[in-house]
């Protein structure tokens, strides 16, 4: 109470105090800045570098000079904070609603609890050492080709402050970068939930997700995006596999999709699968989730430019075209070959388009994006309608059919369509390969990703199966996970239609 009174009393004096503080601050910082010899030329060049998202002039000047603007660039930083919350919005509530609508009403809360549980768990792991394992340099020296970053360098987000980390960007705050990447780390294990929905114990889901981050996600993200990553073809000249992945075709969609396939096979089918109807309980909810995913995906793809620059604009346009085209092609094919253009068809097509364009978003031309959209409306549709029936596994909400198949397709198409006229950043390390054998590097990356995801998931799934078991009893499954795992009902005051 004392503190509050103090503030109220001093209210009128605040402007004066603030003015004095600002003046003091200016004097102090001005003192340190003017000590360096920064010329007007250099100051202008530094601002131009900001406009162009280029390297700081202060760091390249000889001898080094101190800038008057030592921190992040406001425009780039603002876009990255916006993108960060857009990607969070994809999981909460986008994916939760998309998946939630597709399950039966007795399991709606289990999906939502799992999404939120993963958000908390992954954030803690990220702070603990996940960010460090992913984005700290693994070799500790200039260059290298490593599978995993450093365990301790950025542990507890130590030293991750508002100054940019020039390994990744000269103009966005390091802590904003770490939060942006955290949102990717959250949505990836959450995507797996689609394959195992309605039949996995909450405890097993949490345990799997936590272990999977260490076995698959942190290594994958480091290899593809880490500065000295094993498969980072764009930035690491010493990368063993010179692959391209703009926003997560391999890291996010392939890793989650292939792991989902393995987990849903080890887990087994839902009780009564194929004998009783298991129709989605609310396609309205699924459609709302789809819209949120699409909106959020602009943060995912355009945000992956790590700046508010021309590459972000390219990714923005390509994301729009691929999603719209695939979202149209899929239901039209349903109409022609199956029966009717369904709402689930529109939703699935849109998500498939977004998945397939993800690795290519900032590397390809607009026409390539349209072609990618068409492919995204065809290939995942076939995998979901035909392949799934043929193989007979119970991928409840089609994580494999859309994310693994779509992600793999996208990784391959990125190799074929990547264009260094669209994105000059790929010229330096990949100039020799672009338009020639880049697709071969993509195939290697695909093989490596599938291998790591499948092996990692098999080991973790069996370990959990023997330790605490993966599934609840058949009776619990019939009653629904909501009441048993969470003690709540999603629609307590509504009549549930028996069907």
């Amino acid at each position, binding site marked *: 109470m004392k503190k509050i009174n103090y503030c109220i009393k001093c209210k009128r004096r605040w402007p004066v105090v603030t003015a004095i503080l600002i003046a003091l601050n200016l004097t102090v910082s001005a003192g340190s800045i003017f000590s360096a010899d920064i010329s007007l030329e250099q100051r202008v060049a530094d601002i131009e570098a900001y406009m162009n998202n280029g390297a700081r002039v202060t760091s390249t000047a000889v001898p080094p000079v101190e800038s008057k603007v030592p921190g992040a660039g406001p425009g780039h930083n603002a876009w990255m904070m916006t993108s960060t919350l857009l990607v969070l919005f994809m999981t909460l509530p986008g994916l939760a609603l998309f998946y939630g609508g597709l399950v039966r009403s007795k399991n709606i809360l289990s999906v939502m609890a799992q999404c939120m549980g993963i958000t908390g768990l992954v954030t803690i792991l990220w702070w603990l050492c996940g960010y460090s394992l992913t984005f700290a340099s693994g070799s500790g020296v200039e260059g290298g080709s490593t599978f995993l970053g450093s365990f301790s360098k950025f542990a507890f987000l130590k030293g991750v402050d508002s100054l940019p980390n020039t390994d990744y960007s000269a103009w966005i705050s390091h802590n904003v970068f770490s939060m942006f990447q955290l949102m990717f780390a959250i949505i990836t294990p959450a995507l797996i939930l689609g394959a195992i929905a309605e039949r996995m114990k909450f405890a097993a889901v949490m345990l799997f997700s936590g272990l999977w981050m260490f076995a698959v996600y942190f290594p994958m993200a480091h290899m593809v995006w880490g500065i000295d990553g094993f498969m980072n073809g764009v930035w690491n000249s010493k990368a063993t596999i010179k692959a391209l992945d703009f926003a997560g075709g391999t890291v996010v969609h392939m890793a989650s999709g292939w792991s989902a396939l393995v987990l849903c096979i080890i887990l087994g089918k839902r009780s009564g699968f194929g004998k009783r109807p298991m*129709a*989605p309980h609310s396609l309205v909810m699924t459609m709302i989730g789809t819209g949120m995913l699409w909106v959020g995906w602009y943060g995912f793809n355009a945000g992956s430019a790590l700046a508010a620059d021309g590459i972000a604009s390219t990714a923005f346009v390509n994301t729009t075209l691929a999603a719209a085209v695939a979202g149209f092609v899929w239901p039209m094919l349903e109409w022609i070959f199956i*029966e009717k253009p369904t709402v689930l068809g529109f939703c699935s097509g849109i998500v498939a388009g977004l998945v397939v364009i993800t690795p290519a978003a900032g590397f390809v031309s607009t026409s390539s994006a349209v072609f990618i959209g068409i492919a995204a409306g065809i290939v995942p549709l076939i995998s979901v309608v035909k392949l*799934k*029936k043929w193989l007979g596994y119970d991928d409840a909400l089609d994580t494999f059919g859309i994310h693994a198949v779509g992600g793999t397709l996208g990784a391959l198409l990125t190799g074929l369509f990547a264009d260094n006229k669209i994105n000059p950043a790929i010229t330096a390390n990949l100039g020799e390969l672009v338009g020639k054998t880049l697709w071969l590097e993509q195939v290697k990356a695909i093989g490596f990703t599938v291998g790591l995801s499948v092996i990692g998931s098999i080991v973790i799934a069996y370990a959990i199966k023997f330790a605490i078991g993966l599934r609840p009893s058949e009776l619990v499954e019939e009653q629904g996970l909501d009441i048993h795992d969470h003690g709540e009902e999603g629609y307590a005051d509504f009549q549930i239609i028996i069907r």
Partner: protein
Amino acid sequence: MKLITAIIQPAKFKDVKDALAKQGVTKMTVSNVSGCGQQAGYEETYRGQDIEINLLKKVMLKIGVNDKFVEPTIKAIIDGARTGNIGDGKIFITDLQECIRIRTGERGSEAIG
């Protein structure tokens, strides 16, 4: 006194209600029910997978009537609900032992009317 229970297609409910009103039958209790008869069920398609739905959505009417209203009520329900296709529904008629109006305590035909 009879209790008429009719199970009809949800889409024909409005027609049945209008036909009943024409015969002077305005009191009824209506519920949403699920069931299956000769229609057996229907199919829905999600991502190309056919799902057989065994129970169909139906509407059930319960109407308590005095004896002279039994035939007009039956006629009205048939007029309103019949399409000539399988799934039009059924009407059950049972004897009604007693009827009491809660507000006044009236019993029998008085209470029904």
